[in-house]
């Protein structure tokens, strides 16, 4: 919906009158990746001020945390950021396990890593397809969804669900993986590498994409730090911050992978970070499959009625969009006292107002697409 609200005449810095108008992008818009409304004050084609308005998909996740037991809250975690649902569930069960001092068996940890990395690849594929759609290229979306269907087949075989898995349980997993999954995952890794190479030739090296993304939307290191931006946004600005490396969790220290980081801080850097991350996730999956130990997938003594000792507990993971952290405040009851979800998209979008000032409108949308937002992640 684009509604012209008002026309104002302002004086610009050099004294010439400048007529600005306000348009709404969203909340229903193909390029906002969800229900986000951006109030843009425009000077012709240039953005004077872009003010995101959120809350159109606020689903009371934190309030539900105070109304559900720890096990009952698990399905909610998948629906906060539905594209990287596994990693979000990982953060929540990790926080509960940390508080309850539960020892998760190694096999469960390795399978968690494998499924989280598969989830990361499928999330980046959706981002890639949708981003190219924003820029006007329709074909990569179909390629991306084709590859994604293969991942979803694998994950559906073990979890039963395609998008919002509730596969992890407090203390481990709900069921073990079978040979079909392991063979299928190896076959997927083998066929995905040439596909990534094809994407590089088809899209990344495309002159139109390069002209649209190089030098567009520069975000400095200082801006990232002041706004708390994480994930590919901060790695595209030259800071190699990845929770898997800086605050290691699960069995990530066992694997050999690099953190792709690019200096320039423009949209192309963020794009390349994600493309490289997909390749690195394939490496992690391969190593995890090679090292997968035998054993149980559920911790031994998980109480049926779980009460955490009073206090607050945190757990952070590297989701596809950035750093996702859960803070549980408990008062020794079955239901938490407070569940705080620190989501990456909120911090990443908060710098949009400052970063997009003075840009052309299509460039501002390219910047927004390169931030990789999922709006229910912001609104919770």
């Amino acid at each position: 919906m684009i509604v012209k609200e008002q026309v104002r005449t302002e004086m610009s810095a050099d004294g010439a009158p400048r007529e600005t108008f306000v348009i709404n992008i969203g909340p229903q818009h193909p390029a906002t990746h969800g229900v986000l409304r951006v109030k843009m004050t425009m000077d012709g084609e240039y953005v004077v001020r872009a003010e995101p308005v959120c809350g159109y998909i606020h689903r009371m996740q934190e309030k539900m945390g105070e109304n559900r037991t720890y096990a009952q809250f698990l399905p909610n975690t998948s629906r906060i950021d539905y594209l990287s649902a596994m990693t979000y569930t990982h953060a929540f069960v990790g926080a509960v396990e940390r508080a309850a001092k539960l020892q998760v068996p190694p096999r469960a940890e390795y399978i968690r890593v494998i499924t989280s990395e598969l989830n990361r690849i499928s999330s980046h594929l959706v981002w890639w397809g949708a981003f190219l759609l924003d820029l006007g290229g329709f074909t990569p979306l179909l390629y991306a969804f084709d590859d994604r269907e293969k991942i979803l087949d694998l994950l559906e075989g073990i979890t039963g669900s395609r998008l919002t898995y509730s596969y992890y349980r407090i203390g481990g997993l709900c069921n073990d993986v079978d040979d079909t999954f392991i063979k299928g995952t190896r076959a997927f890794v083998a066929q995905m590498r040439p596909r990534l190479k094809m994407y590089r030739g088809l899209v990344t090296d495309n002159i139109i994409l390069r002209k649209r993304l190089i030098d567009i939307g520069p975000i400095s290191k200082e801006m990232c730090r002041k706004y708390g931006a994480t994930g590919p946004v901060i790695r595209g600005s030259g800071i190699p911050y990845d929770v898997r490396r800086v605050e290691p969790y699960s069995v990530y220290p066992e694997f050999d992978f690099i953190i792709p980081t690019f200096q320039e801080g423009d949209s192309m850097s963020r794009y390349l970070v994600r493309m490289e991350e997909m390749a690195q996730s394939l490496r992690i999956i391969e190593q995890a499959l090679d090292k997968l130990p035998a054993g149980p997938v559920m911790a031994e003594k998980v109480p049926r009625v779980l009460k955490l000792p009073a206090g607050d507990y945190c757990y952070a993971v590297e989701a596809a969009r950035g750093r996702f952290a859960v803070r549980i405040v408990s008062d020794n009851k079955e239901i938490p006292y407070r569940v705080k979800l620190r989501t990456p998209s909120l911090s990443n979008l908060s710098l949009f107002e400052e970063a997009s000032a003075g840009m052309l409108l299509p460039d501002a949308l390219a910047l927004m697409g390169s931030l990789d937002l999922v709006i229910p992640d912001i609104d919770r």
Partner: protein
Amino acid sequence: MEAQEDSAQALKDCAPYVKFAKLDELLALGRANSLWPLTFGLACCAIEMMAAGASRFDLARFGAEVFRPSPRQADLMIVAGTINKKMAAAVKTLYDQMPEPKWVIAMGNCAISGGPFVFPGQYAVIEGVDKLFPVDVYIPGCPPRPEALIEGLLKLEEKLTGKRRWPIVKAE
């Protein structure tokens, strides 16, 4: 009398080449075969809607792959996701902006009845899109599979044309 027999014979002769039908049925067939959905993905179900439009599940077979961004050009609103109290006014505006004839599919549990976000003391979710405007087809699931969305679309086509033109897939 001869003219009548002639015309009856003429009808028989041209039967392989000319078909006659009621205009209503013809229009209904045309509309059912080319439903143009509005891109109205709100939350998780939107991803399954996109997957239904992608190459594996392929809504294009049923004529419904042309997702229109503008409600003025769409005749089907697939409400995929949770309706919020803040968003409700926008949803109603979009529905009102769609020209007649228009249909609504409520995809996913949230659009049917608020989904997993209904709990005592809830303050933000509208419990079902049929509280705002009438719905033609409900597709349960959280999220429903793309095949379920296609089945919902076929049910809508059955509602439009009066008969179902595609086989029903039974579980083996």
